[in-house]
């Protein structure tokens, strides 16, 4: 590493960190929180809704999973203005990301709910619970434990996918890296730095996931 490169790394350190802390991480957290709520609704609609609602939920999941995230981002940010809906980069990114993650998370939640044995429903009915209460108090708490590992994976993917929002002008970490790279011409250095930043964030998330799983695992042995 030449002294010049070292200076550049030091110079870019703070802008990239700032991009991570005010862009990447909040973008991922907010999108994930919205996505989980939406996904729960979609999963319930698909499992227990009336026929047309089930069909809508199915179509939603199919469309989201069958189209690229980048295209979804472009439709929200560059497409909608041509029908008169203009949304800023940040909210556009949150909308597209949460709609995207919700499509996948809905399927994870549906599978987790279905993995709870039928006997749990029956046991709940015989002690006097109706369907809604059974779902809330018996089925979903157990489904949550099953769905934590796959949902954590979705979250880690989401963190990395926020880099795509640089293409709709969101100033997150990768956008900061691109700007410093363009100004200095040191593309290799800056993009490797960006890669390292993502990796560190994902390492921390994986550690968090393991701890969460161990905590929940205590309750679901057998």
């Amino acid at each position, binding site marked *: 590493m030449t002294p010049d490169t070292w200076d550049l790394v030091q110079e870019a350190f703070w802008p990239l960190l700032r991009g991570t802390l005010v862009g990447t991480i909040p973008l991922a957290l907010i999108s994930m929180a919205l996505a989980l709520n939406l996904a729960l609704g979609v999963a319930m609609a698909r499992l227990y809704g009336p026929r047309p609602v089930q069909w809508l939920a199915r179509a939603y999941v199919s469309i989201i999973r069958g189209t690229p995230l980048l295209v979804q981002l472009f439709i929200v940010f560059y497409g909608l203005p041509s029908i008169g809906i203009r949304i800023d980069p940040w909210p556009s990114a949150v909308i597209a990301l949460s709609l995207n993650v919700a499509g996948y998370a809905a399927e994870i939640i549906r599978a987790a709910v279905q993995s709870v*044995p039928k*006997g*749990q429903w*029956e*046991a*709940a*009915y*015989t*002690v*006097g*619970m*109706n369907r809604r*209460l059974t779902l809330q*108090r*018996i089925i979903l*708490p*157990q489904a949550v*434990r099953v769905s934590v590992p796959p949902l954590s994976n979705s979250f880690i993917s989401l963190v990395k996918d926020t880099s795509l929002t640089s293409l709709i002008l969101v100033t997150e970490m990768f956008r900061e890296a691109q700007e410093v790279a363009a100004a200095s011409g040191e593309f290799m250095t800056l993009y490797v730095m960006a890669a390292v930043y993502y990796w560190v964030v994902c390492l921390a998330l994986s550690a968090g996931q393991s701890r969460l799983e161990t905590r929940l695992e*205590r*309750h*679901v*042995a*057998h």
Partner: protein
Amino acid sequence: MGIEITGVSKRFGDFVALDDVSLSIPSGQLTALLGPSGGGKSTLLRIVAGLESSDEGQVVIEGRDTTGVPAQKRNVGFVFQHYAAFKHMTVAKNVAFGLEIRKRPKAEVKAKVDELLELVHLTQFAHRLPSQLSGGQRQRMALARALAIEPSVLLLDEPFGALDAKVRKELRDWLRRLHDEVHVTTVFVTHDQEEALEVADSLVVINDGRIEQVGTPDDLYDKPASDFVLSFLGPVTTLGDRLIRPHDIEISRYEQAAVVDGPITRWTRVGFEVRLEVTPTDPRHPDPVQVVLTRSDATALGLHPGDHVWLRPQPGADAVVHA
């Protein structure tokens, strides 16, 4: 009162699980539904609980017609073969749950849970999770949970089926004692005739979706209404042209008036019992006859493998049906 089942039928596709079953289960008794797997006994129990609907017929529980009443409003306690413990809740919480959703006062719930945990000997496990209990303990917890709601009937579907032999034996003695204390109308499903004979006040033998016989354990054992009941309630063997229980055969080394005679061709000792096979010399009845006697009887009679013996029914052996 108790449970009145009238003309209940249930089909799963082409399979007839229950065919026009009518049955009256008296209040306060411990009744066993006994029969082979796939005979319809579990289906009948689940229909009573409301977990399955019948195609035809009516179930009246303690004077209340349950047609169209969902399981959660029938006030039945149900115990499942595989426990169906609420895994994410402590033992105490599992038991309390049915009361909490009925919005009973906190103090009342606590008192009731304490009382039930005491009854099922799980007081010291109140704050454990079901995954930290053994199979037998889990099933006792499930029983406490079922009793918590003060059910009008308690239904148990093969409750000890998933437990090992020793625990199964302990638990059924315990169920018997519990029932003597609690006196709730109880119906349990089993395919284990020994379990049914030992625990129940009355037995209902179900096979192929029909009731074969209803009666006390003694009635069924001594006066089986059909070959099926006879052979299902214990071992049987063919002596001449009749079915008989192997321990109801009189065996002698000396020539006597006998149904068949022949050499002892097989000799198996199981604990205090000796199980013999005698191959008749009479070519009209070539199949070996099983005979069971105690070891001390075998010694007293001076029996040895290979001895020629004469066999006839014991005097007063009722369990004889023409084959």
